[in-house]
């Protein structure tokens, strides 16, 4: 238990540190920035959050997170902001925005495991449905725009990012179904 907790913390911290140290090459491309660096920070945060699920901070947060609503609302706002092209590009030029990017996404990941476990299937579907829908629409827009959305990134890069966002949205939705299926099947058997 303690060992798995330690390795969870180590892996999470390592992922976030890698996203920070490899900032320059990752942020040189829109696709790597959005599809690799941002998810790495969030996954790093999730590993930390899961490892620290029995901590005091987690217990305090639980009081503010009935049905997982607060953590899932944070998920929607954080993902929405970083999919705004201008919002994302500001992180390239303003160190404070870059810091906010790491903090908001790491926190999003950290809150997510416990919030998901507190949310029932309907609430999960509402928030993840919104997230995947938003991500897919953003991805379609990125591909369709004749002009560049970020001045720092080339049009080809934007199109690749758009394709990646659509794929990620579909995978997230599919993953949720696969994850929820055994529970739904079990509930069916009980009924």
């Amino acid at each position, binding site marked *: 238990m303690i060992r798995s907790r330690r390795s969870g913390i180590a892996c999470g911290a390592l992922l976030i540190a890698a996203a920070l140290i490899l900032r320059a090459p990752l942020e040189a491309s829109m696709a790597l920035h959005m599809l690799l660096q941002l998810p790495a920070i969030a996954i790093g945060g999730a590993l930390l959050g899961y490892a620290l699920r029995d901590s005091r901070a987690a*217990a305090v947060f639980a*009081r*503010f997170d009935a049905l997982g609503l*607060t953590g899932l609302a944070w998920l929607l*706002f954080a993902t929405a902001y970083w999919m705004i092209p201008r*919002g994302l*590009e500001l992180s390239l030029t303003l160190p404070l925005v870059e810091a906010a990017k790491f903090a908001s996404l790491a926190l999003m990941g950290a809150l997510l495991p416990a919030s998901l476990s507190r949310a029932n299937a309907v609430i999960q579907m509402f928030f993840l449905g919104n997230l995947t829908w938003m991500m897919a629409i953003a991805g379609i827009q990125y591909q369709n725009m004749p002009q560049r959305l*970020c*001045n720092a990134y080339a049009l080809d890069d934007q199109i690749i990012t758009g394709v990646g966002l659509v794929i990620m949205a579909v995978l997230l939705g599919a993953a949720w179904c696969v994850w929820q299926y055994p529970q739904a099947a079990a509930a069916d058997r009980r009924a």
Partner: protein
Amino acid sequence: MTSRSSSKPSSSLTAAALVCVAALGAAAIWYGTMGFRVVSTEDGRRLAIEEQPRTLPLPPAAADKRITIATFFYARCNAVCSSVGSELQQMQQKITEQGLQDRVRLLSISFDPRDNSDALAHYSQRMRADPAIWRMTGLPDAQRQNVLDLAGVVVLPAPLGEYQHNAAFHLIDAGGKLVRVVDYEQPDVALAAALAMSAPPARLAHAEGEAR
């Protein structure tokens, strides 16, 4: 999750937290979209310039008392700037035909350090630029990044010695202030806006009165 009483979810605390998350999220998105008005960096740049005109530290030789329609370019460009180049040629022609050369002029500003005065002169010749209407200028090394940053022009090195950059028509008033940016696909809008700037309403009415 153990159901210790200290970690029991509270609906009023959750409601308060939700309000905070929503307020913070909305404020962030407000900031990122300049008040829910833009999503792209380029639209944001244009809006910011319109709201806060700024003086570009251009070489003194490039100053002019007329309204300037400035574009950023590099002489070797084969992509967007060559289409902007032909738009500028047409604009030059319109300015000549309509006798507007004492109100508006064109300025092409190169951000490419390889563009020395020879390269610019050659480009000017290739474009058949009339020096009374359309001039080319480079930027001194020390000022280049400063000018680009102030104008919000981002230059990305591309393969084969090319660059990708946010091309547009930049309207600079008689006082040297960059006041408006017009899309490079709308040269007519840019020219009309420049003419509107060159004749303030009062003077225009006065001139019309004289004409009558």
